[in-house]
């Protein structure tokens, strides 16, 4: 891969921030967009916009076929069938959809749901809500000091009451790649279904839901070089068939009389109302971008950046890495001495370097490590070793100022 050529595809990388060339290391929060995605969305509004699925006219049919082609493209990318892809606003909505349809239907008082200590809030809060509503009980997989799930403890948590296991494929704060195959296999032995929060996995590593044998998978386009406001829930068809609809309204019905409705087939049963057509089509361009370079190559490039940055950061006095799992995606979380992550982030920003600081929407994980937050650098396909050098120089400068 010629990274300098890839960088040319991202107009924002030519921008300056606070008078300095932008070094964008906040990819775990949201990645930047290639020109192909930007132009696809723009062209759609310029030349192709119409509402989808109902119109008999040419524009509507064109928009419908483009929209549905994305579903097929995405299904192909993750090894699913297109009717198993439900478009949502993002990972959070996908998890909420799952919790409030599958969860509401299948959870009885005393049933158990398993999540882990390292979950993002979006894979915690919905379960807090649904445990309250259904009387189900939440069980937590603990982690070790490296930020890896304690899989022995996990197997001990499983029993015949376990109905749902919902865990991150990759941790957004620590970068830990969880052994989800093992988690899924064990859960299935007890008849539980597994949802994977794939928000941090799909942009960085190869994902095949069929091969994983997961029951549900949630992710967001905007971390995959696509637009914000669009994501998806994958579900095994036989499970989705049995689930009640999420929202009621247009698009998700088969027929409506004054007193009752019958619902459309998959996947439309779960997609009420006019969807986010433009961004879905933009998502298609993002999937094409990922396919062009290949998840395997992207993962290898990001690993190189991760390993190089870790090695260089290790030379800084007082550095403390949070999350040292053997299997990591391109995320580094760290602290330096007693410098508050907020202070380090503010100074780095003045140098044009965008990192994330704080608890990263994983407050329980911060409580586990007894820290206020971390500084997190997360990489993407367009990042370079030179940028890592700038980042390291920035961290050293900030350290001098703040110590």
């Amino acid at each position, binding site marked *: 891969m010629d990274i300098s050529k890839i960088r040319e595809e991202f107009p924002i990388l030519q921008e300056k921030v606070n008078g300095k060339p932008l070094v964008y290391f906040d990819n775990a929060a949201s990645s930047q967009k290639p020109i192909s995605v930007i132009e696809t969305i723009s062209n759609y509004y310029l030349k192709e916009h119409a509402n989808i699925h109902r119109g008999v006219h040419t524009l509507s049919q064109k928009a419908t076929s483009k929209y549905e082609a994305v579903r097929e493209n995405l299904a192909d990318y993750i090894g699913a069938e297109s009717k198993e892809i439900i478009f949502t606003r993002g990972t959070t909505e996908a998890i909420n959809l799952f919790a409030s349809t599958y969860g509401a239907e299948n959870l009885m008082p005393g049933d158990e749901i398993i999540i882990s200590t390292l979950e993002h809030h979006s894979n915690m809060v919905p379960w807090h809500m649904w445990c309250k509503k259904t009387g189900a009980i939440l069980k937590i997989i603990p982690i070790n000091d490296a930020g890896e799930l304690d899989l022995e403890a996990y197997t001990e948590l499983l029993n015949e009451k376990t109905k749902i296991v919902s865990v991150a494929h990759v941790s957004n704060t620590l970068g830990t790649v969880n052994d989800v195959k093992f988690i899924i296999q064990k859960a299935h032995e007890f008849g539980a279904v597994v949802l994977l929060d794939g928000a941090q996995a799909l942009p960085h590593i190869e994902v095949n839901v069929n091969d994983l044998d997961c029951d549900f998978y949630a992710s967001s386009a905007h971390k995959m070089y696509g637009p914000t406001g669009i994501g998806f829930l994958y579900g095994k068809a036989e499970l989705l068939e049995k689930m009640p609809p999420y929202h009621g309204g247009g698009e998700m019905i088969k027929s409506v009389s004054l007193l009752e409705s019958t619902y459309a087939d998959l996947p439309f049963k779960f997609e009420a109302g006019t969807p986010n057509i433009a961004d879905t089509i933009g998502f298609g361009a993002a999937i094409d971008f990922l396919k062009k370079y290949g998840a395997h190559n992207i993962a290898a490039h990001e690993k190189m950046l991760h390993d190089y940055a870790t090695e260089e950061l290790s030379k800084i006095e007082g550095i403390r890495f949070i999350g040292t799992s053997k299997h990591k995606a391109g995320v580094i979380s760290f602290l330096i001495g007693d410098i508050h992550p*907020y202070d380090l982030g503010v100074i780095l920003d003045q140098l044009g370097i965008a990192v994330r600081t704080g608890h990263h929407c994983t407050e329980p994980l911060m409580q586990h490590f007894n820290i206020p937050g971390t500084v997190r650098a997360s990489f993407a396909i367009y990042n370079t070793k030179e940028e890592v050098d700038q980042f390291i120089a920035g961290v050293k400068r900030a350290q001098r100022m703040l110590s």
Partner: protein
Amino acid sequence: MTIKEKQDQIIEEFAMFDEWMDKYENIIDYGKELEGLNDSDKTDENIVRGCQSNVWLTATEKDGKLIFNADSDAIITKGIIGLLLEIFSGHTPQEIATTELYAIDEIGLKEHLSPNRANGLTSMVNKIKMTALAYRAKQNG
């Protein structure tokens, strides 16, 4: 010195620095100079909750004037609250409640200290103003 005169002095002080680096170092110095609080004062009642770091603010009345003290776990945030206290501390509740804050906008850090970024700069100012209003009501009552 009035609150207004103090603000003008701070604007003048920051005008000496051309580089953002120096301005930040000056902010950090305000943080270092701030006495800070004992852990026993870092209570829920005294907290100004921000997104990334916390600020604790206390107030006591002496000879009809309000004396503020504050602390933060982040030094830049502590510097910002230190700057605010430099402006507001030691004045009557009436003066604190009614004098407009304009120095922050003018010291050339406005773009760097948006309410969100400055860890709830607005919340800090609100807390100072609300405290002053409460004391004014008490004095008048």
